[in-house]
């Protein structure tokens, strides 16, 4: 089970309304390599992990991804706060406004809704951990693209934190992969 903690993992400040940047940030709210995909991917795969280290790691990284999803949501909420329908339209968010007003919705930067087809759980821990390492790299690259699309210092600080977490998660998944390999290489014969 989970308990909500009424705080963000990392501060999320914005200079002011920036609808263009809000639109781009939807990539990480409901895109293929979004924080939502990451959370659902790891929290789904964990059931079929063969060793305690990997069960724990997927649970804990999956949980951290939910906190990151909240941070991205906060950035979008703040960047769109007070925007008029006309401003949304001019920023390319007219389609979003028609269906969602100023509410958040899990779609990508182009408005494509989130789908479970973005993630995989194969039941093969080696395969799943490789997928996760690739996912962390794709998210890191996406953060680098997003950072290059803004000059808002607050947004850059928050995105830089999230980018760094992708690097750490990649490292931890790599360690889990090594441990799972060792687990399978060990002969399970009892005399």
């Amino acid at each position, binding site marked *: 089970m989970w*308990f*909500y*903690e*009424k*705080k*963000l*993992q*990392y*501060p*999320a*400040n914005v200079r002011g309304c920036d609808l263009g940047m809000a639109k781009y940030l939807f990539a990480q709210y409901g895109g293929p390599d979004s924080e939502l995909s990451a959370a659902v991917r790891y929290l789904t795969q964990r059931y079929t992990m063969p060793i305690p*280290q990997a069960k*724990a*790691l997927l649970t*804990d*990284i999956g949980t*951290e991804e939910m906190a990151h999803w*909240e941070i991205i*949501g*906060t950035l979008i*909420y*703040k960047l769109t706060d007070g925007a008029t329908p006309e401003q949304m339209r001019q920023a390319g968010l007219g389609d979003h406004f028609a269906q969602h007003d100023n509410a958040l919705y899990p779609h990508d930067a182009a408005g494509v809704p989130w789908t479970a087809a973005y993630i995989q759980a194969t039941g093969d821990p080696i395969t799943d951990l490789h997928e996760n390492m690739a996912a962390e790299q794709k998210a890191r690259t996406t953060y680098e693209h997003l950072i290059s699309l803004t000059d808002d210092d607050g947004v850059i600080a928050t995105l830089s934190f999230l980018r760094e977490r992708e690097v*750490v*998660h990649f490292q*931890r998944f790599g*360690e*889990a992969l090594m*441990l799972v390999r060792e687990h399978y290489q060990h002969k399970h014969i009892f005399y």
Partner: protein
Amino acid sequence: MHDYASMVEMLREIQALEFAVYDLALFLDTHPCDKRALEDHTKLVHRLNQLRKVFEDRYGPLRLDSQSPYPYRYINDPWPWEIHY
């Protein structure tokens, strides 16, 4: 009523401490026999619990299983996405 700036300052301290705990916890998931990391984790958890208690007594519950005075204070604004850090 305590001022907003002090609340945010203490919240940021909690964020920093909790981040250190979380990052160490991920490390310990794959290195459960690293004694030094576990000692650091233990120390930081202790400091975090102390600070969280001070914060909650002053500014209200962070979790639904934190004790609240009457009327129930957990619901009070600002929620995390409304805070200017």
